[in-house]
């Protein structure tokens, strides 16, 4: 009975792997141009769904945009030309990542600049606190604080534990 068990196990394993084998084959057999299509479509925003790429979205517009990209890649157009085709029609908005040009530079480098300004301000503040801190350790003088000190001691003495 042992060899039969092994055979059942083997067939079972192979059957379980079938769905994976087909997807793997699909990926291996895909047209080489499909990688370019994917690369372009991942950078383009699906115009109707705010924050999804044309490649990820299932919307009709994204599906048809993918079709247009595919046609253009197969027609031999370069990646830059295809990106520009969409840019000319939909503007800056079509790129998921803002281009590193003009006012967009503020988006890219503003936060880093802000971080540096914040770090500088914090450093300056630390220095100031440290300088002031040395004075603060010394007991405050003056009749008022003296009176306060006496009162605290009196109150402490009054507490019965």
């Amino acid at each position, binding site marked *: 009975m042992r060899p039969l068990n092994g055979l059942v196990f083997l067939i079972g394993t192979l059957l379980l792997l079938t769905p994976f084998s087909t997807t793997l084959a699909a990926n291996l057999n895909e047209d080489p141009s499909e990688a370019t299509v994917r690369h372009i479509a991942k950078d383009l925003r699906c*115009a*109707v769904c*705010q924050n999804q790429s044309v490649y990820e979205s299932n919307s*009709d*517009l994204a599906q*048809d*945009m993918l*079709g*247009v990209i595919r046609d253009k890649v197969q027609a031999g157009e370069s990646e830059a030309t295809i990106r520009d085709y969409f*840019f*000319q*029609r*939909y*503007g800056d*908005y079509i790129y998921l990542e803002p281009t590193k040009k003009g006012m967009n530079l503020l988006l890219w480098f503003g936060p880093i600049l802000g971080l540096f300004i914040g770090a500088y301000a914090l450093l300056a503040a630390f220095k100031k606190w440290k300088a002031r801190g040395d004075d603060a350790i010394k007991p405050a003088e003056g009749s008022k604080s003296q009176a306060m000190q006496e009162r605290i001691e009196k109150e402490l003495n009054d507490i019965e534990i």
Partner: protein
Amino acid sequence: MKLSWKIILLLSILVILALFAGGLGNNPRDIPSPLVNRPASPFEAPALDGQGMVSLKAHLGKWVLVNFWGSWCVSCVAEHPYLMDLANIARSRSDFVLIGVDFRDTVEGANTFLRRHGNPGYRHALDPKQKIAIDWGVYGAPESYLVDPTGMIILKHTGPLYPGWFEKVALPHIEKKRTESGE
């Protein structure tokens, strides 16, 4: 904290709040089209009525309103009565025509729509894979482009056209062009 720092902090917070408040009023779907003031992309596609082709080129020399729609589009139903009026305006003028681009649609769907809501009479190009729509930078329906007699896109209107739109928006452009050309 010195007073000057307090003022700077307060001002920065106010600026951020003002930008935020301003941004809230923006419509995320209202994206300016880079196609305005650029030559319209030519197209030639099978007509919905099954008789030959519909092209933009055929109307060169006239003002053309290209209306992108589909029978699946809810706002197009709201827009439709005004398109019927606009078709009448076009018939009464020699310098203005309408073309529909029925995209992502089927012939049966479009014909059912026109039977139910009325047929304005102008011709429609069929664009099932929305190739023309993408070529024209269309996001959704309805969207309309006003093209001048030389084939330049003068303006884009996103969303349904509304009663009085022609007189209020299109006519000033037509009149301006006419005075410029000295007619």
